[in-house]
């Protein structure tokens, strides 16, 4: 039997996103893109975005490899930002960061991402969960 904290970390939904990542097809010639890489873990996330004239994210794609946490987060992130404006996406990013650091965070904004809350009990794994978010930021800057 795995201890409770592990169950919180490797929830079924998370493992499902790991094994069946959403939005995984690559967008060719996207408006925004970036590569996130953590050489120490080997975690990698490639992100592509297309936004419309109102700066709303219409298309998002990611490909990557790495641990369950990094890849599931990326998959969950793509779902959560699709259809949101860039500003909204960055606001979600900020709430996610707060959740990881154990600060009060806005669960309405986070929605499905709340499922990753268990990561914060594993300090070395937090950076796995933040990789796709810093890649998002890079892609927009």
């Amino acid at each position: 039997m795995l201890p409770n904290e592990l169950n919180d970390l490797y929830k079924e939904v998370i493992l499902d996103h790991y094994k069946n990542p959403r939005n995984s097809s690559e967008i060719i010639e996207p408006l925004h893109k970036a590569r996130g890489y953590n050489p120490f873990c080997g975690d990698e996330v490639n992100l592509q975005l297309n936004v419309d004239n109102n700066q709303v994210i219409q298309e998002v794609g990611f490909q990557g490899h790495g641990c369950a946490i990094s890849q599931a987060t990326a998959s969950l992130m793509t779902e959560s930002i699709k259809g949101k404006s860039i500003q909204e996406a960055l606001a979600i990013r900020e709430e996610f960061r707060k959740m990881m650091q154990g600060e009060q965070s806005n669960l309405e904004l986070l929605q499905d991402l709340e499922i990753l809350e268990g990561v914060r009990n594993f300090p070395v794994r937090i950076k796995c969960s933040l990789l796709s978010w810093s890649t998002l930021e890079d892609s927009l800057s």
Partner: protein
Amino acid sequence: MMDINSIKKDFPILKKQINNTPLVYLDNAASTQKPNQVIQSIVESYELYNSNVHRGVHTTSMEATERYELAREKVAKFINAKSNDEIVYVRNTTEALNLVAYAWGLNNIDSTENIVVTELEHHSNLVPWQFVSQKTNCELRIIPTTPEGTLDLSSIDKLITESTKIVSIVHVSNLTGTINPIDEIIKKAKSVGAKVCIDAAQSVPHMPVDVQQIDCDFLAFSGHKMLAPPGIGILYGKTEILEKLEPFLRGGEMVKEVTYSSATWNDIPTKFEAGTPNFIDPIGLGVAIDYLSNIGMENVRQHEKDLIKYALDRLTEIPGLEIIGPTNPEMRGGVATFSMNDIHPHDIGTILDQRGIAIRTGHHCGMPYHKKLGLSATSRASFYLYNDYNDIDKLVDGMNDVINYFK
């Protein structure tokens, strides 16, 4: 032969509980635990013999110096150096190899010559030589590996040639566990007049090593990987070579006469020990060497051979698990590196840790070799004299749990 239960009792950290289960420490290639004997020798040093060494006329300084130099003698005997003067105290293997690269490499190699390393090098025996190669414009040649993770010596005559100035190779790989055929390589190196430097970080702690018998010019290892504190490493160098060598770090202690414009150097090994040395940790290393010698390095090696054989046998039972490196225990130190089809090492590491099992995950300071394998990270369980079959069983149980979780 070796009573592992009573050995375990010497190591206070093995009583530690992680998530209400006892620590199973399998990260020994990274750093080892310390027995009470070593910890107590450090306390004793602080409480009774703490003083700057050398040149003090007061009792405590003399006592500290005696203990500091006695430890050097123990190290010299342990690796069978010809003289205590061949033992240079440094912080770790990395500093030792940098000393050789800076003091010997930069001053003895030119752009028509070359340095030879292997594909199995730890970053610490690769990056310093890349530096020398860039500074001197010399070539850095790399002995390739076979798919099994052993050195491929088929083209050795093309790699180690008359223009080779130094061959710097890892004795036992921390990546694959491979015990490299250094005798053969050293013979080849000597035949072309090249110097030989051995990265013994994973050999001296785990098996008998005799520097006169292997006939290397330099050899480096770290105390923290052999029951001793992390502030002491050793550079062995042959007397003739150390005597001719330029100093590396400069300052107090390592000088003979100093004027405002110039300085002359002290005798070896002091010439290489600038400033106040870490005068505590070598004493811990001396006690660690006593501990290992009491058990006998042949026994330590045999024990780890038994463990690695058992570990490889049991781990290969696990579906989807692939062993990295040679599977013959005769050619392998106590390092079990593996990868799993779809499960990332970090997830394995986290799940095992929740069961108290400490392994290392990542590239183990061997990124280029991992890249060659097409992997960005692997999992590594590594053993020492306080590990037993039971620890390996726990590892295997843990791995089965990992699989259940991810299936």
